[in-house]
């Protein structure tokens, strides 16, 4: 569609759209004056009945656990889509991988200090990510956020201009396995609820004492499963895009 057609369509649909937007915005509660009952219920239920102190994670992995299952599979499906769309030149690429010289292994411009820094960053980021995963039910964190932090660790290898070293350490099949393992683990934890508590995704573990690492029932487990999946998913997505970049650099795109 040309730009003029699109602008014409916007001119037709725009006023109606704007009217709906204004009506919708007028129906919102005043800023700072929200009286939603669900939030207040969560504030009461989760700390006392579930012994979780991060209410956002508690909602995500307890009250909305089934939604999170769907969200997880959206993530999984999108990443599978990215891999499917970008992959069909990869076989040629792998052939080249085997006979690549050392210069090929580095993107231009990485200084020695940047390399050292990126090496230091890897353990820092990964341990921060693991901390966030494990303390998901206690302090700000949880699987989704922590997975991105975990994935950022290995990716700092890229700063060092050593992308192909990353590819050797974490080949696509391993990332795919990690991604699927996380998704499967979440679904299987839910199955545990079905077997031990009679309802899918219902908690079947003791709640422990509030504020301790092993508390809040199966929330830490769910958090770990999601964290693993998100780590794999983000690393896989970035790997696929960086492969495209490599292909483009060699003028084969």
């Amino acid at each position, binding site marked *: 569609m040309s730009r003029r057609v699109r602008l014409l369509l916007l001119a037709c649909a725009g006023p109606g759209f704007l009217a709906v937007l204004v009506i919708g*915005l007028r129906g919102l509660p005043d*800023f700072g004056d929200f009286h*939603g009952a669900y*939030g207040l219920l969560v504030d009461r239920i989760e*700390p006392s009945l579930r012994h979780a102190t991060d209410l*956002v994670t508690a909602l995500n992995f307890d009250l909305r656990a089934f939604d999170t299952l769907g969200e997880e599979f959206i*993530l999984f499906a999108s990443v599978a889509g*990215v891999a499917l769309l970008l992959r069909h030149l990869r076989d040629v690429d792998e052939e080249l991988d085997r006979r690549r010289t050392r210069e090929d292994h580095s993107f231009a411009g990485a200084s020695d200090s940047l390399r050292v820094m990126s090496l230091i960053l890897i353990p820092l980021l990964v341990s921060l990510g693991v901390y966030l995963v494990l303390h998901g039910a206690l302090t700000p964190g949880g699987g989704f956020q922590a997975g991105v932090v975990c994935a950022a660790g290995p990716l700092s290898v890229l700063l060092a201009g050593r992308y192909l070293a990353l590819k050797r350490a974490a080949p696509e099949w391993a990332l795919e396995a990690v991604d699927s393992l996380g998704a499967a683990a979440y679904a299987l934890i839910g199955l545990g609820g079905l077997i031990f508590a009679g309802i899918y995704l219902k908690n079947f573990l003791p709640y422990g004492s509030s504020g301790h690492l092993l508390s809040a029932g199966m929330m830490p487990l769910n958090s770990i499963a999601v964290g693993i999946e998100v780590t794999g998913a983000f690393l896989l997505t970035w790997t696929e895009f960086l492969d495209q970049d490599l292909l483009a650099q060699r003028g084969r795109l």
Partner: protein
Amino acid sequence: MAFAPYAAAAWLFVIGLYGVVCSQNLLRTVLSLTVVQSATYLVLLGVGYRHGGKAPIVADISTHSKLVDPVTQVLVLTDIVIEATVTALLLALVVQAHKRFGSVDPARLRTLRH
């Protein structure tokens, strides 16, 4: 200025939509879409805010303190995760379009033949 967050959200939505309509580069279309989506974050966080409310994490505050609404915050989290992955998927489609048509100008995309 109680309506400022909503006004900002409406602005982001409209400007993002305009970007989607007018862009002559598919990459920019995708980025405009993320601008549209960031309007939803602002709306959700704005809706769930309570004056003087604290973050909904009761690790070191009393469970009876006034908290901002956790439900909308969870929705924002979901929103961000989905946005990140769907953006990746759209960008992959852009790469494919570039491979197939040699251009990322939406006006120059021809119909798919196979």
